[in-house]
């Protein structure tokens, strides 16, 4: 889209060098076995709480136990006029990166240079007050986002028209429908005049028609040569808007390049069923194999979505473990998380003795529409720690079940049950 701005020696809009951010996650609380010890701890707790709270914002050079690096050694540059998408799993550091770039939180290491006026859209409608009218909120929100009053004056009619709330502009926002509120909030943000725009998942507001309008607006923004850095889980949006993508994994930048290539790499960071090598998760669990069956016959990646199928997890318990959570995140091909399920739903959280295990999850037929899905293995010990959270992914392709050319949009497609009554006639019932 803006490939022309590359290679012209265009000035860099964003330069990020060796950026890092560490957080202190409070140290785990000690357990007390006796009432006396608990009482003692309770009396001492103000002192301990004070130490703990003070540490929350301390900066350590060392690798203390309660320090995690949300972002580590991230470097990249973005040319003026580029639209760059950042993708990665939850917790990969995408949002932390945007928070640093928008100056909400300072980095712990490294340096960022931003050439030009920056505005960030990390959430629409921040600072909206329900008691104020639409007009008052536009001014308040506009100035919160960094506009001067004069700028809001000039853009006001455009904003109101874009949000389609002309008639209600002097009504308190609390009387708005949530859709109207979101439209107005987005409209304010979309009309910011800045050179660099940082956007985090805010395009997913309103109904389909308004989303389309938002996307068009974003495309317009990118056409006038503004630099955009966009975080999204929606791979279609990334591919449509961006001319470059950055992949982040565990706080590090692991790949950058053309959006289609990076999106493909992100999604295919998954396994065909048979290729998993045994892998030890902590000291308790060894993951051996994932297999898929349909109609009791081993199946590959391609399945019929109309009939139930099973995903088998073969694993060894290496030492006795209680409160084991083992299951899947089921994620649609475009990155939308559909649901999570654990085998504790039938097996419970009691102790599992060492030995080989097989946990089988059966998905009912007809629940999911045709398309690509990922089963991310999640293993953890309840309330203690994760052993694996989405690093092992199984890719499955479900084929169409309904033999009709009628379209059924939506993320699920349960058959349900239809009853049709033809009123006035004798009787006619179909199921």
């Amino acid at each position, binding site marked *: 889209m803006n490939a022309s701005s590359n290679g012209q020696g265009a000035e860099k809009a964003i330069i990020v060098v060796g950026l890092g951010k560490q957080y202190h996650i409070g140290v785990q609380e000690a357990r007390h076995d006796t009432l006396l010890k608990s009482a003692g701890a309770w009396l001492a707790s103000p002192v301990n709480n004070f130490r703990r709270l003070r540490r*929350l914002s301390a900066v350590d050079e060392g690798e203390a136990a309660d320090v995690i690096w949300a972002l580590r050694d991230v470097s990249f540059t973005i040319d003026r006029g580029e639209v760059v998408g950042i993708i990665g799993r939850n917790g990969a550091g995408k949002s932390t990166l945007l928070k640093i770039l928008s100056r909400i939180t*300072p980095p712990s290491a490294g340096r*960022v*240079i931003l050439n030009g006026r920056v505005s*960030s859209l990390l959430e629409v409608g921040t600072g909206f007050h329900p008691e104020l009218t639409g007009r*008052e909120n536009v001014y*308040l929100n506009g100035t919160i986002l960094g506009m001067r009053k004069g700028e809001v004056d000039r853009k006001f009619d455009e904003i109101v028209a874009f949000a389609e709330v002309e008639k209600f502009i002097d009504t308190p926002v609390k009387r708005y429908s949530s859709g109207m509120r979101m439209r107005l909030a987005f409209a304010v943000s979309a009309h910011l005049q800045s*050179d660099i725009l940082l956007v985090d998942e805010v395009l997913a507001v309103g109904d389909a028609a308004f989303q389309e309008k938002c996307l068009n607006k974003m495309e317009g923004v990118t056409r006038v040569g503004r630099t955009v850095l966009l975080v999204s889980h929606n791979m279609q949006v990334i591919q449509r808007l961006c001319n470059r993508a950055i992949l982040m994994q565990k706080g590090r930048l692991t790949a950058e390049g053309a959006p289609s290539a990076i999106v493909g790499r992100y999604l295919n960071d998954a396994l065909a069923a048979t290729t998993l090598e045994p892998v030890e998760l902590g000291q308790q669990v060894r993951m051996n194999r994932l297999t898929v069956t349909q109609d009791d016959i081993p199946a590959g990646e391609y399945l019929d979505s109309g009939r139930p199928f099973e995903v088998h997890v073969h694993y060894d318990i290496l030492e006795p473990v209680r409160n084991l959570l083992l299951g899947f995140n089921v994620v649609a091909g475009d990155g939308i998380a559909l649901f999570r399920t654990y085998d504790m739903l039938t097996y419970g959280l009691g102790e599992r003795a060492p030995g080989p295990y097989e946990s089988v999850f059966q998905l009912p037929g007809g629940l999911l529409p045709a398309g690509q899905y990922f089963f991310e293995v999640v293993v953890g010990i309840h309330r203690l720690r994760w052993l694996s959270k989405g690093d092992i992914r199984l890719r499955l392709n479900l084929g169409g079940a309904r033999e009709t050319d009628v379209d059924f949009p939506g993320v699920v497609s349960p058959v349900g049950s239809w009853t049709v009554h033809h009123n006035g006639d004798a009787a006619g019932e179909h199921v």
Partner: protein
Amino acid sequence: MKSEQIVIEPVRGWQVIDWRELRDYRDLFRFLVDRDIKVLYKQTVLGFGWAILRPVLSMVIFTIIFGNLAQVDSDGVPYAIFSYVALVPWLYFSTALSASALSLVNNTEMLTKIYFPRLVFPMTPVFSKLVDFAISFVIVFVLMAWFRIMPTARMIFLPLLVALMMLTAAGMGLWFAAMSVKYRDVKHAMPFLTQILMYAAPVVWSGTLIAERFGEIGRILFGLYPMVGVIEGFRSALLDTGPMPWDMILIGTFSAAVMFVTGLFYFRRMEATFADVA
């Protein structure tokens, strides 16, 4: 659009105050003050009547308890107006201080989602609460007419006292706001603290008691609490209870300025951590 460059680096230790940036955000400050004022009495029956009702009701209670029952000395003026003249600056101070101290914890959503100079938060109530102050101040003249009291020429110093009262609220507000993000204890301590501060100031009692009980030294030390000078100054100017207590006002101004400047720097130092621990 003018080109500008922003450099983001790790921050450690003490920070300077970025006046230019504050100037760029002055419209936001105006709208936030505006919002505070507009929203305060929304969906109430009495609306801005509350700005009058609160000090008047306090005055009635104090007059019954301290004026009639306890027979507290009121410098020769009727106890009702004696306490009301103190309640007007006092209620401003306590509401502005509480709102300022809790401005960050009550706005964590904004704190973690968007950047603008955080100083705007604790400073907003210092200005928005002036509206209530102005409305309740009008009643002072009604009471003065009722009790047939003539104001003195020292009224010209009132703007000075108002400025001191704002500086004090801002200084203490900055300190507590900066602390409150990490230590939520502030939220629970605030109602109690304002109560202690009220009895420490000559709201229900007369400032002349200080010199009687603690001598001149006590008077100077009490002056370190700026609201003492403010309240006694209000009484002197409006009720002619004595000369303007310049010594106390001067000491109060000094300590308020120290609190404000140190508060600014402490706030700036803590600012970097707000979004992380909020």
